[in-house]
């Protein structure tokens, strides 16, 4: 999500599943919705059947999404920026830009600092030694009033639109085809279909998932598509948007709740170790508007932060101690999973807790992961199923060779409940918080996750109360107000993250008017205060459990507009808004761009419509407030300023393991071959293979019959796809004498696996930069535990390198060799 937030202000799917039916064109690229999200994909078939929509699929493989596409274009794995940059160039060259939208709702008119530069594949400020940029020059030119300078005529040579045009002028159709391997006529056909949605009454939706995130420059791939959508005016519109299809049932929720190394709930961020003072910490996050009359909603940061600390530490959080600001751990660096397993591999970690997570299978380079886990003193597994990680120390022959005696790690395996045996809420990809109910008791002695965490925490708290120890304050003062402390209930916890008034809240204008009584649940984050009078565990979820009750459990599915906006179903963050940035569905005067797709419009007094306005309800169009209220600019960013690690405009770089020795865009510049700011450790660079020994491009993926490494434990799914296989194109198979059903050995510099060969016409050889490139498909679902036939963990092969912003590993493009086993 480190690409949507820098562009639009929030890191989440902009629209929602049902809204996809309103599209005129669906672009599935960097994802495979038909297989990974079949029930969401129904809204694509619905758009085709009842909105006469067209479907384009761009993918290295002809997938089951492609099977229903009106047009399919093949692409070399890892070259999507070249493709999308080419689309940007095409749109600008052919004048297929929704110019009124772009001028009003993006930073196209903003003037960029003079010292910003881009030369030979590198932006200004690069430091090769630290593999990072000083991003100081990646900024707008500011006037004396503190506002960014703009040129509404777009004449200024350094206005964003002109810089954009210049940056992507290099991405001509022949260059695109040379880099991506997509035949030029196929690329142009895709451009032509996309360009039609620049019309105000036509929208394209983009559906993507791990096919974009799992690259060393995945965030920039997504950003590039987001920029295409802005040029076409497709954000904020029904049937448009950037639809990030999240993988797990509550991955959105856990991200919203900040369960990432550098976050706090609601996208608040943990302080760095350079930020040990409270006021500067807040000031650096409470962004002041960059243009007049803009909302810049993060100005309220302190209200969210103080309310969080009140929720966590209760009376201990006081103005005198800056609401326990010192108690929060301060970041020395981002402890993403690659960093953590690198540190673990080097012996810097003693303990690790895996709650419903199977890292031995989920992270890259299985051998390294196994070695890392063996360095631990203690490992705690909390899971409903027997994961591979929980038995990393056990010998499973070729699939997991291990010498148990030599592994000293003590492992605790604690059985947890599954969905059917618990209640609570999950946030789906479309930001809906939905409640579910318990239908049965767990098997044997299994307990719920909250109960298990409570069990560990209460023991630990007892030890600190009895014995003292290192900094016990946050532990012994953590608020734990549950009727049964050993079993915090879902209802109690949901009420806590929603937030409540701690004292009577009075109107700031009329001190005698009580808005909310002490103890009452809050109804919206607008009620939060930074004086300690409100407590709220996650401001973004405020409104989910109010005095009206549990809004996440609502089940009114009525859809009066027919556009699929069911406002009475569950609760959607923020503030029950269903389509983010919906102010942009109307023109600058407040009139819908497309009358058949009215989301909200200005009725001369207020904004009304079929959705909750993602905007100030009463700000008239004449005031000029922009639709992207989280951004200090008020508009969306074509130029990402300093928000992205490797540059404000996406640039094509080769995957770390590429069949090409150079980046065709910068053949003379080795530093610009791969993402110059990507996360990579020295010892892992040594384990990168080259095209001599590993000539084929490999990409890992998921099959519709399985879910990650869970459903191999599920009998029916094991029946539907029983045994590990790899997909090999017919031409490569012929070259190698491989027939369907043969056993083949796939090897990378990091290891090898053996699997059955599925030989298919769906993987075509591509002509890339003067050579034939074959691609090999590697489904990931097998392992050494479960009901399906035992297999290798596919991450035996994958490289330990991550995206520069999210540190997501590059699972989608690397090199392998293929032989008959």
């Amino acid at each position, binding site marked *: 999500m480190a690409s949507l937030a820098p562009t639009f202000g929030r890191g989440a799917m902009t629209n929602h599943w049902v809204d996809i039916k309103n599209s005129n064109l669906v672009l599935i690229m960097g994802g495979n919705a038909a297989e990974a999200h079949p029930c969401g994909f129904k809204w694509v078939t619905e758009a085709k059947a009842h909105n006469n929509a067209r479907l384009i699929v761009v993918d290295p493989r002809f997938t089951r999404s492609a099977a229903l596409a009106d047009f399919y274009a093949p692409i070399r794995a890892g070259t999507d920026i070249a493709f999308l940059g080419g689309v940007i160039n095409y749109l600008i060259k052919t004048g297929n830009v929704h110019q009124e939208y772009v001028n009003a709702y993006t930073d196209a008119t903003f003037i960029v600092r003079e010292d910003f530069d881009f030369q030979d594949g590198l932006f200004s400020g690069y430091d090769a030694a630290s593999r990072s940029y000083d991003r100081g020059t990646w900024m707008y030119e500011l006037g004396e009033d503190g506002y960014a300078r703009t040129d509404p005529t777009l004449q200024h040579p350094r206005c964003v639109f002109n810089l954009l045009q210049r940056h992507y002028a290099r991405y001509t159709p022949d260059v695109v085809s040379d880099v991506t391997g997509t035949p030029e006529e196929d690329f142009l056909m895709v451009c032509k279909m996309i360009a039609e949605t620049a019309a105000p009454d036509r929208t394209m939706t983009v559906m993507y998932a791990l096919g974009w995130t799992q690259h060393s420059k995945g965030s920039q791939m997504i950003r590039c598509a987001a920029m295409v959508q802005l040029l076409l005016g497709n954000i904020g519109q029904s049937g448009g948007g950037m639809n990030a299809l999240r993988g797990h049932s509550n991955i959105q929720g856990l991200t919203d709740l900040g369960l990432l190394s550098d976050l706090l709930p609601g996208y608040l961020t943990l302080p760095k170790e350079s930020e040990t003072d409270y006021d500067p910490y807040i000031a650096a996050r409470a962004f002041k508007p960059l243009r007049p009359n803009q909302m810049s909603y993060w100005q309220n940061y302190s209200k969210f932060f103080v309310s969080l600390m009140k929720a966590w530490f209760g009376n201990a959080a006081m103005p005198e101690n800056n609401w326990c600001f010192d108690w929060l751990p301060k970041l020395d660096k981002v402890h993403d999973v690659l960093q953590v397993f690198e540190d673990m591999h080097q012996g810097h970690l003693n303990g690790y807790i895996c709650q419903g997570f199977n890292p031995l299978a989920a992270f890259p380079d299985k051998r390294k992961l196994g070695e890392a886990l063996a360095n631990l003193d203690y490992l705690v597994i909390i899971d409903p199923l027997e994961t591979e990680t929980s038995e990393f120390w056990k010998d499973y022959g070729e699939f997991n060779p291990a010498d148990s005696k030599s592994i000293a790690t003590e492992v605790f395996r604690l059985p947890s409940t599954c969905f059917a045996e618990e209640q609570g809420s999950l946030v789906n990809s479309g930001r809906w918080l939905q409640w579910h109910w318990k239908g049965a008791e767990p098997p044997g002695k299994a307990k719920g996750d909250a109960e298990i965490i409570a069990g560990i925490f209460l023991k630990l708290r007892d030890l600190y109360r009895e014995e003292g120890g290192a900094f016990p304050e946050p532990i012994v003062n953590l608020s734990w107000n549950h009727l049964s402390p050993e079993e915090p209930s879902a209802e109690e916890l949901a009420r806590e993250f929603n937030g409540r008034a701690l004292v009577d809240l009075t109107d700031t204008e009329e001190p005698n008017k009580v808005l909310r009584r002490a103890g009452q649940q809050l109804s919206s984050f607008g009620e939060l205060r930074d004086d300690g009078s409100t407590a709220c565990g996650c401001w973004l979820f405020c409104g989910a459990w109010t005095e009206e009750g549990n809004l996440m459990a609502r089940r009114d599915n009525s859809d009066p507009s027919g556009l699929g906006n069911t406002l009475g179903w569950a609760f959607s963050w923020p503030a029950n808004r269903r389509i983010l940035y919906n102010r942009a569905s109307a023109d600058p005067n407040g009139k819908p761009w497309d009358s058949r797709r009215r989301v909200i419009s200005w009725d001369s007094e207020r904004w009304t419509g079929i959705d909750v306005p993602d905007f100030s309800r009463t700000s008239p169009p004449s005031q000029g407030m922009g639709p992207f209220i989280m951004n200090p600019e008020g508009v969306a960013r074509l130029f990402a300023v300093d928000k992205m690690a490797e540059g404000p405009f996406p640039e094509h770089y080769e995957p770390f393991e590429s069949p090409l020795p150079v980046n065709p865009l910068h053949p003379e510049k080795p530093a610009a071959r791969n993402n110059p700011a990507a996360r990579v450790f020295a010892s892992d660079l040594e384990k990168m293979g080259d095209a001599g020994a590993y000539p084929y491009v490999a990409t890992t993926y998921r099959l519709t019959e399985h879910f990650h490494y869970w459903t191999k434990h599920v009998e*029916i799914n094991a029946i539907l796809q029983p045994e590990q296989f790899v997909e090999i194109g017919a031409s490569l198979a012929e070259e190698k004498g491989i027939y369907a059903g043969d056993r083949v050995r796939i090897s990378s510099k990091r290891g090898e696996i053996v699997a059955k060969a599925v030989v298919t016409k769906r993987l075509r050889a591509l002509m890339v930069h003067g050579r034939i490139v074959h691609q090999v498909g590697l489904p990931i679902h097998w392992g050494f535990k479960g009901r399906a036939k035992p297999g290798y963990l596919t991450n035996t092969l994958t490289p330990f390198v991550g995206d520069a912003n999210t540190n997501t590993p590059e699972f989608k493009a690397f090199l392998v060799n293929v032989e008959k086993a």
Partner: protein
Amino acid sequence: MGLKLSRRQFFKVCATGLATSSVAALGFTPNAALAEVREFKLSGAKETRNTCPYCSVSCGVLMYSLGSNAKNAKQEIFHIEGDPDHPINRGTLCPKGAALLDFVHSSSRLRRPEYRPNGASDWQPISWEEAFERIARHMKSDRDRNFEATNEQGATVNRWLSCGMLAASASSNESGYLTHKFARSIGLLAFDNQARV
């Protein structure tokens, strides 16, 4: 298309076929030929609404369990299908969702806490109480040894870097919220969920 019987199968069909069909044809059928459909199996079952735990489409599901919810009946889920009221899936499910029953009853479900000591090649059972105690003791001694109150520059950092945690992206917001609260209170930074992979 057409009939795909191997020669062996053909003989088998004929052999068993003749032997039994003849019995029936001569009127030795055990019962009269009633034509009833299979009994509808959900009639008295308890219905509970839930959400599919796999991908983020979040399909609504209906779980059917044995027993009326009476005190003496232990609920046993025996069928799961889509919730037709749900605006997104409208009753549909994918091959994973349609097979959720086999996840609930998977032979790989963990049923009791287990412990693997240093160097052991198999699990041994452990009680919850003992597991919590030993885990807490491990964590406390590690934390007390390695907690960093200040960094090299003397700035207050209050962090514990020698322990890490991965949180479950299929657990509920409520569990996730509690887990986050727990992790930061003990000073964890090496803390992530599946969002990065």
